[in-house]
């Protein structure tokens, strides 16, 4: 396991060197002589814990703590004040500001080490508990529990996230007319935060779709409405998402879709040929004047449609290049008629790589029209 990183902020040279020396036996240590320098270092790499003096030139410990509190990515860094100020006033002020521990000089270094260890352990424990529980919980809600069974077609879904996965989501719903609405997308960002936004976002899409179907069945109209919300709602201000919505009518085999910057589907024509479904528009959340258009394709007999998220296409092949749309166009036709289309595609991709695992979250949906 990687060693924890600790940032020491102390203006007095000798003490700073002493702390660096003692801590570096157990941790990766960086040090700064004042709050300003410390902030720079924090922005370069967020440390696992900060030990800071209070009285320092330029920016003091209180100002540093305040600056860290004002940014969401630095707010939760465990923070220990180390100071000559024994007075209760400073101690209370520090505690109110979210300082986790407080040690007065002169101090016993072993005592400091013990406190650091305890604080890091506690933080790690809470983090892992929280991540695992929330991650699993949200993951389930972002993926379909089952697939519809549709005469004349066979459908496959595969999802293998890395660790807790990211912001990928997939959903389907059937309209009373018999057509299906299929939603696939990716909320930008990594880890739990992306997953959380994806969850809120998907709930919103479901709600909007339901309301919209009373008056319109246009995927582009849905994208317009969702984009509008992302641009207006301050809660969703930092949310950017690619989204592909398809309306699929299994009786006519027509698929009408609108694509907001999502990976373009692959239309398989037969066991040899496939092409990229070209038309797409801007990703959501970026421009309130963005326009979206519907386009229609037909799934041929003995062909199919492959929907996926970027992990599949960005997989590095043995040459170091990304698999890309070209690679998928070459591999996807092999899924037609295959006993296990999911494994056929996965193995097909991995056989082009130097590894037997995928680099990123993998999600795809394969709908094949039987001949």
């Amino acid at each position: 396991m990687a060693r924890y990183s600790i940032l020491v902020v102390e203006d007095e040279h000798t003490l700073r060197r002493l702390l660096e020396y003692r801590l570096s036996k157990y941790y990766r240590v960086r040090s700064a002589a004042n709050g300003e320098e410390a902030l720079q270092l924090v922005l370069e790499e967020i440390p696992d814990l900060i030990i800071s003096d209070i009285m320092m030139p330029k920016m003091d410990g209180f100002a540093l703590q305040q600056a860290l509190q004002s940014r969401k990515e630095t707010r939760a860094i465990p923070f220990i004040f180390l100071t000559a100020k024994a007075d209760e006033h400073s101690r209370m002020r520090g505690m109110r500001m979210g300082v986790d521990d407080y040690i007065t000089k002169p101090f016993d270094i072993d005592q400091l080490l013990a406190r650091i260890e305890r604080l890091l352990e506690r933080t790690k424990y809470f983090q892992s508990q929280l991540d695992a529980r929330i991650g699993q919980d949200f993951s389930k809600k972002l993926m379909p529990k089952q697939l519809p069974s549709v005469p004349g077609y066979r459908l496959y879904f595969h999802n293998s996230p890395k660790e807790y996965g990211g912001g990928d989501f997939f959903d389907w719903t059937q309209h009373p007319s018999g057509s299906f609405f299929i939603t696939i997308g990716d909320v930008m960002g990594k880890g739990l935060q992306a997953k959380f936004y994806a969850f809120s976002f998907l709930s919103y899409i479901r709600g909007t779709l339901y309301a919209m179907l009373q008056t319109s069945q246009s995927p582009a109209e849905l994208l317009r409405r969702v984009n509008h919300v992302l641009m207006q709602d301050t809660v969703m201000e930092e949310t950017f998402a690619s989204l592909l919505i398809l309306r699929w009518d299994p009786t006519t085999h027509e698929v009408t879709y609108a694509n907001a910057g999502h990976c373009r589907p692959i239309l398989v024509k037969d066991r040899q040929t496939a092409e990229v479904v070209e038309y797409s528009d801007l990703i959501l959340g970026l421009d309130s004047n963005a326009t979206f258009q519907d386009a229609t394709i037909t799934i041929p007999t003995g062909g199919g449609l492959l929907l996926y998220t970027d992990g599949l296409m960005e997989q590095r092949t043995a040459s170091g290049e990304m698999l890309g749309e070209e690679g998928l166009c070459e591999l996807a036709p092999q899924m037609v008629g295959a006993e296990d289309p999911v494994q056929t595609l996965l193995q097909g991709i991995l056989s082009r790589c130097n590894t037997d695992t995928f680099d990123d979250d993998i999600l795809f949906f394969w709908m094949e029209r039987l001949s």
Partner: protein
Amino acid sequence: MHNPSVMSFSVEPLNAETVVIRVGKALDFRNAAEFKAICQEQVQNGVRNFILDFSETGILDSTGLGAIFSLYRQVSPRNGQVVFASVSRPVQVVVQLTRTYKVFRQFPTVEAAQEALQQT
């Protein structure tokens, strides 16, 4: 002490409203927060036009792109612009995929970008 060689980005002011940011080898989940912080500081100083130089960039992931999007959303209400210069192939792929060339104008060089910004 702070070591400039580990910084991923360098900022070069062209005038009071325009800066060039040289994006290094990567803009991704590891340094997107740093990129955001640097841009934030520029925006607070009154900068509204950003030329992003991607000549060295091999990796642009969705978190990195998200950071650029945040910047765009901050400056666009002030009639500011975010433009791309010397776009490398890996960056081009991402830009194509997300259709963001509809929003971020691209120029072959920083100089060409600078010239175009002066005319608006």
